[in-house]
């Protein structure tokens, strides 16, 4: 059976029109997240701090996002079970920070653990919370098309400080690759690590709250994983991660509209396809 190419392109154009006319704020929000998350994920892998700097903000800020989405206390002022959940999350994150501070784990293992852990934690939160199905489930599944234009200025405002921190990318690289030389040159390793963790945590926080953990994790980890290719130097890997993120932000929502699925899986699938295509093209060019 020969697929009808004309019909496919009609659907493609229609999906773009639907997104542009009806869901532009959500589309722009995904682009904003894709501007900062992929390069931050890449630098996190350079710093071999995946477990601490990705898992910690994800776990801690997933808890904060839940705290913002649900009431902490009920009408009588009794503590809400969510407060306990948040305590567990923050405690886990703190324990993670202490135990893994001086441990360097495999980046691949760390990324996989972070991805699974963040999804598992948020799914547990959804299951335990009485508001899970009504308020959290759409966020968890990345159903973000209902995002209104009223939230966009705030999102854009939140992206700016993260972008500003990229002025420090040279310091991030210097302290990650040559910590002793950097210290001898008068660079504070601790300040660089703190600045990077702050930028990452801030970006994950607003992306999780606006777009949910699925899109956040997908944009943070997948473009970075593909960009960290054998032949890439850090500058070109960063560019590749950014371009991959933008392409995923473009095609993910389009695929979601065309296939009638939530945007979250669409962005994750687009990240994988874009990363695989770019990697294949690069390998062919190199050879």
């Amino acid at each position, binding site marked *: 059976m020969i697929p009808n190419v004309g019909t496919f392109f009609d659907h493609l154009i229609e999906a773009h029109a639907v997104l542009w006319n009806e869901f532009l704020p959500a589309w722009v929000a995904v682009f904003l997240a894709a501007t900062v998350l992929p390069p931050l994920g890449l630098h996190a892998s350079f710093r071999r701090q995946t477990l601490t700097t990705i898992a910690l903000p994800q776990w801690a800020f997933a808890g904060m996002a839940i705290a913002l989405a649900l009431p902490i206390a009920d009408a009588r002022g009794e503590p809400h079970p969510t407060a306990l959940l948040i305590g567990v999350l923050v405690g886990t994150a703190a324990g993670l920070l202490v135990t893994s501070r001086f441990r360097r784990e495999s980046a691949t293992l760390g990324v996989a653990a972070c991805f699974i852990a963040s999804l598992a934690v948020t799914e547990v939160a959804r299951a335990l919370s009485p508001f899970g199905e009504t308020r959290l489930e759409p966020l968890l599944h990345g159903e973000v098309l209902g995002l209104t234009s009223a939230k966009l200025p705030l999102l854009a405002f939140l992206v700016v400080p993260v972008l500003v921190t990229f002025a420090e990318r040279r310091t991030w*690289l*210097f302290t*990650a690759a040559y910590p002793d030389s950097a210290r001898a*040159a008068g660079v504070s390793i601790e300040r660089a690590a703190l600045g990077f963790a702050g930028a990452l945590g801030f970006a994950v926080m607003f992306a999780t709250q606006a777009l949910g953990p699925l899109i956040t994790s997908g944009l943070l980890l997948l473009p970075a994983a593909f960009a960290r290719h054998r032949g890439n130097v850090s500058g070109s890997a960063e560019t590749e991660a950014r371009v991959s993120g933008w392409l995923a932000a473009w095609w993910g929502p389009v695929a979601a509209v065309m296939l009638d699925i939530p945007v979250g899986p669409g962005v994750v699938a687009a990240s994988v396809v874009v990363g695989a295509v770019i990697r294949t093209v690069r390998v062919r060019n190199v050879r």
Partner: protein
Amino acid sequence: MSRLSAAELIVVPSPGVRIGPVSFTLGPGDLLVLRGPNGCGKTTLLRTLAGLHPIESGQLAVPSTVAYVAQGPEDEEQVPLGVDEVLTLVQANDGSARSRADARHAALSDVGLEGRGARRMSTLSGGERQRARFAAALLSPAPVLLFDEATSAVDDEGEKKLADLLRSRLSTTGRIAVVVTHRPDVWTQPESTTLVLPAPSRRPR
């Protein structure tokens, strides 16, 4: 004018092991060659000069910024850096982007790595990587340069050229350098100072 001096400096690399007392004074353009048997504490002393290891007693005067080239590649393998990127990390932000790029190109050319700026560090040989790190140190604005066996994998002829290059830069810029080496014939000159560390003294614990 920068100065680097140590007076009765004692360093303890591990409990029961003592290096020193060591005393020297270096002024603009001076080169100190640091020698001694394996395990005598050359690296620890150099790390102390770099501010990476505490002093036990004595006096040490070092500028706040030094260029330190470690014996190993530190965590270089973890970050996929290009040769040109390594130089960018330490280069001062003075001048235009074009002039800085020209300076990096010239620095690579000086150490025999012309045309390799786009290469990833991990694809270079050990000697070539050391040349790149050497070029980065020369390009940095630091008034004091510390090299810990930084040319041990470079071929004989290449190491002689790097030694000549360093001496030439010291005399023209007034910077100070300390070089840890096991090849004194390459680095020692009549005008350079040599400090030979004895085997470390061990105190009863």
